[in-house]
C-alpha cells in the first residue's frame, strides 16, 4: 500500500513537471519565432494546467501548476522579460484574473474526476451486491427444488409403509425401506452440496456470528437422530458456556458428517463420543468411535489429497464427500482438521479459533 502511494506521487510529480516543461517549450518557440503576444502563450499554459489536473490525483498538482504558470508567464514572456514584476500598471489585474481562471479550471476538473471515481466505485458495489443477491436466490431455489421432491418421496414411502387399511407385504416393506434409505442418503448429499455452495460463492467470505457451542451441538445431534434414530452420542462440553464465532449452519454440517461416519463405523453399538475442549486460542472438537475404523481415516486422507489410493473412493455412501466438505468448511473458518487411528478406534479432531480473524 505505502509503496503504491509513493509510486503514485512520483507519477504525479513527473506528469506535472513534464507538462509544465512542454508548455514552456512550446511557448518559447511561439515567443521567439512567431509572435510576442502573451495571449497565445497564456493559452498554452491553460491547456497545460488543464491536462495536469486531469492526469494527476487530487487538487494539489493542478493548483501548484496554476501558480507556476503565472510565475513563468510573468518571468519569461511579459515585459520586463526575465524578471518577476507584478506591479506594472494593469499587471495586478491581468495576472490575478489569469490565476483565478486557471485555479477554477483545475479545481473543477479535479472535482469532476473525483465524482467520476465515486460513481464508478458505487457502480461496482451495486454490481457486487446484485451478484450476491443472485447467488442467494439461486441457492434458495436450488435448496427448495431439491428438497421438495425428496420430501415427497420420503413422505409417500412412509405413508405407504404406515397405511393400516391396506398393509403391504414384507417383500414390499423391504423395497419401501430401500426407497427411504436411498432418499435419506440423497438428502444427506444435498445438504453437503448446499453447504459447499454457501462457501464456494466468491472466495472465503464467511459470515461468522458468536454461537454457543452447546446449542450447535444440540441441533446437530437432533438432526443426526432424524437420519440415524439408533445413534447414541456421548457428549461432554466444558462447564463454562463457550461462545465461538462461526457459521452455525456449516459447523452443524461438519458435526453431522463426522458423527455419522463415526456411528456408521461402530461395529455394534451405534455409539460415538464428542468431546469439546477449550484451549488457549481455539476450541477443539474431538469425535471418536470405538470401531475398527482405519477405513475412515484412510478415506479422510484420500479425500483431502494426503493419500492417492482411489480404490475406496466410491465405497461408503457419501462419507468421502462428507469429509471433503468438512475440510473445506473448517479451512474457511481458519481452523484445522485431522484424523488419526487409535488401538481401538479412530479420532477426528477439528479446531475453531476463538477470535474471529478478519
Amino acid at each position, binding site marked *: 500500500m505505502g509503496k503504491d502511494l509513493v509510486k503514485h506521487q512520483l507519477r504525479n510529480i513527473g506528469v506535472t513537471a513534464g507538462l509544465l516543461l512542454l508548455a514552456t517549450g512550446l511557448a518559447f518557440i511561439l515567443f521567439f519565432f512567431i509572435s510576442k503576444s502573451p495571449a497565445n502563450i497564456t493559452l498554452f499554459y491553460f491547456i497545460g494546467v488543464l491536462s495536469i489536473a486531469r492526469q494527476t490525483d487530487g487538487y494539489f498538482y493542478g493548483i501548484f501548476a496554476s501558480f507556476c504558470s503565472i510565475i513563468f508567464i510573468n518571468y519569461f514572456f511579459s515585459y520586463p522579460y526575465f524578471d518577476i514584476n507584478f506591479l506594472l500598471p494593469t499587471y495586478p489585474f491581468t495576472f490575478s484574473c489569469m490565476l483565478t481562471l486557471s485555479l477554477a479550471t483545475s479545481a473543477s476538473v479535479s472535482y469532476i474526476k473525483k465524482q467520476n471515481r465515486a460513481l464508478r466505485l458505487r457502480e461496482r458495489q451495486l454490481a457486487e451486491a446484485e451478484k450476491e443477491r443472485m447467488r442467494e436466490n439461486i441457492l434458495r431455489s436450488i*435448496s427448495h427444488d431439491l428438497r421438495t421432491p425428496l420430501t415427497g418421496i420420503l413422505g*409417500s414411502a412412509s405413508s405407504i409403509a*404406515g397405511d393400516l387399511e391396506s398393509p403391504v407385504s414384507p417383500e414390499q416393506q423391504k423395497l419401501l425401506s430401500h426407497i427411504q434409505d436411498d432418499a435419506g442418503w440423497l438428502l444427506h448429499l444435498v445438504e453437503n452440496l448446499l453447504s459447499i455452495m454457501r462457501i464456494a460463492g466468491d472466495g472465503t467470505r464467511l459470515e461468522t456470528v458468536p454461537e454457543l457451542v452447546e446449542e450447535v451441538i444440540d441441533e446437530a445431534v437432533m438432526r443426526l437422530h432424524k437420519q440415524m434414530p439408533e445413534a447414541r452420542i456421548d457428549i461432554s462440553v466444558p462447564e463454562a458456556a463457550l461462545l465461538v464465532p462461526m457459521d452455525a449452519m456449516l459447523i452443524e454440517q461438519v458435526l453431522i458428517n463426522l458423527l455419522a461416519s463415526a456411528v456408521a463405523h461402530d461395529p455394534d453399538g451405534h455409539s460415538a463420543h464428542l468431546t469439546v475442549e477449550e484451549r488457549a486460542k481455539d476450541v477443539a472438537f474431538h469425535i471418536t468411535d470405538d470401531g475398527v475404523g482405519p477405513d475412515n481415516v484412510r478415506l479422510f486422507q484420500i479425500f483431502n489429497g494426503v493419500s492417492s489410493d482411489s480404490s475406496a473412493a466410491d465405497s461408503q455412501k457419501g462419507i468421502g464427500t462428507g469429509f471433503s466438505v468438512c475440510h473445506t468448511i473448517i479451512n474457511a473458518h481458519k481452523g484445522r482438521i485431522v484424523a488419526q487411528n487409535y488401538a481401538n478406534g479412530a479420532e477426528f479432531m477439528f479446531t475453531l479459533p476463538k477470535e474471529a480473524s478478519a
Partner: protein
Amino acid sequence: MSKFTALVVDDEKNICDFLSKLLMQNNYRVNCAYTGRDALSFATSQCPDMILLDLGLPDMDGMEIISQIRSWSGCPIIVISARSQERDKVRALDAGADDYITKPFGTMELLARIRTSLRHSNRLNSGGSLPNHPYQSNGLTIDFSRRKVTLNGAPVHLTPVEYKIVSYLAKNSGKVMTYSAVMSNVWGPYAESDNKILRVNMANIRRKLEKNPAQPVYIHTELGVGYRMAEDGQDP
C-alpha cells in the same frame, strides 16, 4: 367427535397428495390449495381449524397470506420451509405463524406439531385455564401460581429474569418461540435487538435445569430462530 379440518397449501401436487393422505389416515378432513389465491378463498369460505402453508408459492408471497389470514382469524398456521431460509422462518413466525416444520420432515414430527398447535388454539379459544395448571415434563415442574420450579422434587433457584424466560417458554411448550418474541415478553417491547443477553441467560438456565447442557431434555435450540420447550406432559 367431529373431525378437524386442515387446509394444505403447496404448489407441489405430490406434497399435497401425500400430506392429505397422511392427514386423512389420522382423522383429519383435508382441503388442498395450489396457489395463494385459492388458499385465501378456501380459508375465508371454509374456516379451517388449521393451515399448513408452504412459503414458496407461484402467485403470492407466503408472508402476505399469513398477514391476510391473521387480520381476521387466529387459526393455527404451520409453515413448511426448506432449511437454509432461517430469515424467512423468523419473518413468518413474527408475522403470526404458529410454528414451522423443515423439509423434509418425518410424519410423526408433523403430526406432533399439528396436535400442539391445535391444542394451543383450543386453549386460547376456550378462555384458557393455563396459568393455574402447572407445567410438567420429565421430572421438571413449574408452578405458575407460586412461581416455583422443581426438578425431580428438588427446588431450582432461578433469577427473576430466568424464571420469566422459562415460564414464558413453558406456557408455550411444544411451540418454537422466536428470540424476538421471548425478548419482548421478558424485557418489554423496547428491548434491544441484540439477542446476546437472552442467549447468555439461556446458557445459565440450561446449567441449572439440564444434566448435560449439550444434550438438553427440556429446552431445545432452533439455531437462528429461537427456542422450543418440551411438550407439557400433563396436557389433556
